[in-house]
């Protein structure tokens, strides 16, 4: 779409436009297409063409060798009846809880407490140090986090030893190896990984808020909960949208931690669409089927992103209306 537009518009830029003022303006703008050219070419090669390729492959049966065989919508039909596929999407809902709902709510609360209580009642350095502690897991490669947690939650790992040490040895468990506890354990790890991101973004947002708002509210006798609802929440709504959107997309795409922690197991208890697609591509060598999984996931992400951005635009318009 943008491809033909880019190429077509890049053409007239080469011939110098004649000076009638309106035309000159358009001609000048057209010359800017040249700057878009390298980016557009790379974009088509690395994103556009492979995306179309995956869409095409999702309508074929192919093992990666020889020629793909056209099967129409068979792969999608098969997906509808595939328990693993449905299980992976059920798990995604839980990942949304662990990576979006809990971190955003906890992050709001923590950022407000760090900013409004600790930052103002204690030294700012205290708040900054605490913020850094919550942010630290965000710095390390998520696979490293997965491997450390994988060890902590092992039968002979640190968590079970900790339970022993505090006299709860009866609860010892193979946390990631038992289908009943694997998903909650992965969710706990993801909350730990994600929490720092909203805290840091919300605290940066709060720095923008006029401190007089808080002081005035306090003088008026508004307690902390009132201030949180009347000032903090509305003031950082734009950031809340951004955090919720980026976390939602991260949760829909989550791969690295699942690979490092459980590889989707045990018995698909922690499988997610992303890992399911990878496994179908490279372990089962069913490229067509894997492409169908990827295509469905892509569609869901695009729809979610568009709905989010539309909601954000609507809420901004409403704010300006007031």
């Amino acid at each position, binding site marked *: 779409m943008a491809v033909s537009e880019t190429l077509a518009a890049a053409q007239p830029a080469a011939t110098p436009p004649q000076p009638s003022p309106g035309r000159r303006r358009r001609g000048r703008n057209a010359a*800017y297409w040249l700057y878009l050219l390298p*980016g557009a070419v*790379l974009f088509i090669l690395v*994103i556009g063409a*492979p995306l179309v390729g995956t869409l095409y492959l999702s309508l074929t049966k192919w093992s990666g060798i020889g020629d793909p065989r056209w099967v129409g919508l068979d792969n999608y039909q098969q997906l509808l009846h595939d328990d693993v596929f449905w299980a992976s999407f059920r798990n995604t809902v839980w990942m949304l809880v662990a990576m979006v709902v809990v971190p955003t709510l906890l992050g709001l609360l923590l950022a407000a407490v760090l900013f409004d209580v600790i930052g103002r009642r204690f030294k700012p350095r205290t708040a900054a140090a605490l913020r850094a*502690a919550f942010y630290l897991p965000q710095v390390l490669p998520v696979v490293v986090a997965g491997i450390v947690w994988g060890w*902590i939650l092992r039968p002979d790992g*640190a968590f079970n030893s900790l339970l022993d040490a505090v006299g709860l040895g009866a609860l010892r468990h193979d946390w990631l190896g038992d289908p009943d506890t694997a998903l909650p354990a992965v969710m706990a790890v993801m909350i730990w990984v994600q*929490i720092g991101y909203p805290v840091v973004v919300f605290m940066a947002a709060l720095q923008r808020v006029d401190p007089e708002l808080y002081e005035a509210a306090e003088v008026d006798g508004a307690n902390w909960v009132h201030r949180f609802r009347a000032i903090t929440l509305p003031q950082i709504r734009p950031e809340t949208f951004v955090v919720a959107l980026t976390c939602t997309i991260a949760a829909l795409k989550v791969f690295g931690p699942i690979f490092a922690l459980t590889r989707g197991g045990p018995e698909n208890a922690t499988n997610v669409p992303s890992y399911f697609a990878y496994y179908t591509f490279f372990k089962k060598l069913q490229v067509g089927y894997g492409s169908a999984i990827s295509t469905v996931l892509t569609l869901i992400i695009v729809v979610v*992103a568009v709905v989010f951005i539309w909601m954000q635009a609507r809420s901004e318009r409403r704010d300006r209306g007031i």
Partner: protein
Amino acid sequence: MVVTLTPSSAPVAPPKPVRDRHHRGVSRWVVLALVVLGALIMLVPFAFMLLNAFKSPSDYSSAGPLSWPTEFYTKGLRTYWTEVNFPLKLWNSALIAGSVAVLGVAVSLLNAYALGIGRVRGRLWIVGLFLLANMLPQEALIYPLYYVAKQVGLYNTQLSVIIIFTVIQSAFGTYLLASVMGTFPRSLLEAAALDGAGKWTVLWRVVFPNLRPTLAVLLIFFFIWTWNEFLIPLVMLIDNQTQTIPVALASLQGDRLMDAPTTNAGALISLVPAILFFLIFQRTLARGITAGAEK
């Protein structure tokens, strides 16, 4: 709601806060204690990692993960360092992340110049397209990329990963820079144009110097994101000679060679560069985030 609060209350300042502070004298310490407890829980896994990275395997198996190491054991660290050929992995990661950061910023800058300053027709759709490209699941691209890379001989080369991430990161960079450049002061551009500066000169002499702080932040983000990427390097880099740190660590996992202390030593070494990089550049990042918030 907010608006009504401010003006009515601003003049009456002195008496109430005293009562208020008195009111919260104890509870603020309770709040502090709770938040500190939460922060400590966040740090516990790091403490476990440190504690067990310097333990011998026999010490670990006899005394368990919680005990203090009986000796300062560094063989786990050294085993990991040599078995994995860590310096090479470090170089691969740095080469890939560094190249992507520089190239990604360059491509974003050119794209955003056309979209944000040039205001070419259909720019909103193009920016939207770039933004969506950044949100796509990488699974939707990986098989065709893998197949084509094999056909053209780029499979298992760092170059393949560099090209792919340059595009993926610059999709985000284009979106961000285009909105920043959308608010670029027109008067500066017009003044330069009156002086006879062409578009290329304006880009490098006027726009680039003004955007340097934002570009620095973008550079750091691209570096860290690429450093931490997993799926595409996992698929593209199968060889010990080309792998990045996260891929090398993950492929060792489950290997018999990796006893618990070595796992922890490996994780520890692997996160040191990321933490160092973060510490060095966190001031730049904080400045950039604030600059972004003001926009």
